[in-house]
């Protein structure tokens, strides 16, 4: 009994020590990456909090027109309107924050859709084997060299329904392949490890091994892919919407930019209207990109 308690105590102390050592060694090696990651996560968190907190997130105020539209339209930035007003005298800051929130939500949905497709095709191939593997790898190989943006343009101009879920489906259908390939290669290496052989010997079902044993080990790559998809889908949506082929129902950054083109905010040089959406777009994409790159650097160094 005493021996067992001693062993347990020893284990506890050992685990704590190991965690401490690992933490310190990680801080020594990846200090730069971790600081970068934290900074840009904080940027993203600030953006998210800004879009949720009450004074900015006022759904009534989005359509709220100033009493004197003719005097107050295209007002320059002032204390009353921090980012000025647009052609209908609407406060631009509240509209911008709504747009950022909707864009982030859109990115979240589209990114998760892409990751689900990529994970499904990347994991199911090596585990089912045979014809299914052939089909899955053939699909990903073809989709990799497929001209994606022409097809996105074609579909979004042919389907004349300007709803956000149409744009989401179109973007989700065409941007997954590279992640499917990288997840597939990860799964192929994990598959050869011993614990997978043990779980095979214990007669677990293939799909159970794939999604409960292998996938948690490939999780870093899945998260990486998800973050890249998040940033990419926000930018692609904005691009399609800016040309005038995107969704028109909910106010996103792309729709704001589209209005900047259509109402000639850009050519009339009302900089307070077209500069902030672009800067927001750059900030969001840059922070996701930096988080992703520093994450991938830490993961890569651990494996090698």
């Amino acid at each position, binding site marked *: 009994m005493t021996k067992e308690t001693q062993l347990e105590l020893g284990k506890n102390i050992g685990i704590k020590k190991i965690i401490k050592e690992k933490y310190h060694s990680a801080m020594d090696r990846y200090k730069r990456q971790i600081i970068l990651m934290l900074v840009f996560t904080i940027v993203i968190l600030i953006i998210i909090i800004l879009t949720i907190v009450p004074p900015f997130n006022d759904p009534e105020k989005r359509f709220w027109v100033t009493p004197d539209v003719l005097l107050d339209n295209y007002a320059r930035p002032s204390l009353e309107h921090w980012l000025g007003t647009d052609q209908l005298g609407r406060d631009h800051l509240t509209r911008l924050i709504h747009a950022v929130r909707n864009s982030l939500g859109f990115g979240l949905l589209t990114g998760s859709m892409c990751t689900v497709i990529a994970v499904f095709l990347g994991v199911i191939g090596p585990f089912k084997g045979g014809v299914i593997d052939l089909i899955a790898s053939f699909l990903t*190989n073809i989709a990799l060299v497929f001209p994606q943006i022409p097809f996105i343009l*074609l579909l979004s101009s042919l389907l004349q329904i300007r709803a956000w879920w149409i744009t989401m489906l179109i973007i989700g259908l065409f941007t997954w392949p590279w992640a499917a390939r990288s997840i597939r290669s990860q799964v192929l290496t994990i598959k050869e490890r011993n614990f997978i052989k043990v779980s095979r010997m214990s007669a677990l079902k293939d799909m159970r091994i794939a999604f409960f044993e292998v996938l948690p080990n490939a999780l870093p790559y899945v998260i990486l892919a998800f973050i890249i998809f998040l940033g990419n889908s926000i930018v692609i949506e904005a691009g399609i919407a800016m*040309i005038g082929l995107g969704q028109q129902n909910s106010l996103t950054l792309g729709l704001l930019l589209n209005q900047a083109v259509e109402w000639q905010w*850009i050519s009339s040089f009302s900089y307070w209207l077209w500069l902030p959406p*672009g800067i927001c777009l750059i900030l969001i994409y840059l922070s996701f990109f930096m988080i992703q790159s520093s994450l991938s650097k830490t993961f890569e160094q651990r494996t090698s």
Partner: protein
Amino acid sequence: MMNLTEKATILKKEEEPISRSSEKNTFQKFISNSFLHMSIKRGIFYFVVFFIAITLAFLLPRLVPGNVLGYIYERPQGTSPEAWAVIIANLEEYLGLNYPLEIQYINFLRSFFFEFDLGYSVLFSFEPVTNIVLRALPYTMMLVIPVLIISFFTGNWIGARTGYTNSKKDKVFYYIFMVLQTAPFFWMAYVFLDIFVLKLNWFPWGQSVPNWAWDWDAISTIFDHFWLPFIILSLTNIGGWATGAHALMTYEKGEDYISYGRKLGFSDNKLRKYAYRNSMLPQFTGLNLRFNGLIGSTLITEIIFRFPGLGYTMYDAFQNFDYALIIGSFIVTILVVVIGNYLIDMSYGILDPRIRVGGKGEA
């Protein structure tokens, strides 16, 4: 004398089988050469991709309900509906749209593969689509190829330099391009259009781009319209290469041969060149993906700048449901993508010694 001739005949007899066997060996080598093997395999693969893409481009517009000609022509006032229906039916017969879908598809494939005929565009008053598309192709290519080459070399150079030296002067460029890479190019295109065209009047505004001709006036006006999209595309593409090269170079810097060379007294510049050559091979595998992305962004940039390349033609065709023009512009875009990818794969095969020599390396 006799001995010599005998010896000569013996030698000849011995030579013949040797030479035959060596010929056989070279022929067998030629067949089993993994470079040739790879080129044939890749060729078949890309043909399949091309076929699937054109099938999708053929089917998708036709599955959307709606009358094609209704988008372009309206019944003029004063004509009876019956007479108008007859005119429309004649037009459909002329364009080959009155057949069922599968026969239309077979007709399309036959006329494309055997006659290189893509039909007639309704939008461009029944001009053959082949002419329109071939007129638009040079504009896209003059954007894509220089941007690809310039962004590849400058991006790799900047990334490798900053990755090796870690000097602060170089890092400024690196970070500028890294931020520019994340900037949305469509937004930057509009901003540049505003600043340089409307405010500063550096570039012409409100003029159409002339057709390509070997004529100084035409070429100079084309290049006036060409600079802005070119600058934006290259600015946004350099960063991607630079980040990749930077990461590769930081790994390569820690290799043993670099520290050995440094201890032997090689100059830093020379070692950087060696490291550059050794580390840049993986960048060629990224060329495929980036090429596809570049084609897409070129199409969108053309739409923004009204630059009459494939993207702008495609946009016109999509908006007006011009079937023949949609498929025509799509086929050429897909051909550009597929041939570009094939050439990139082949160049990778030539550059990678494992494939070139014919070993069994996996690449």
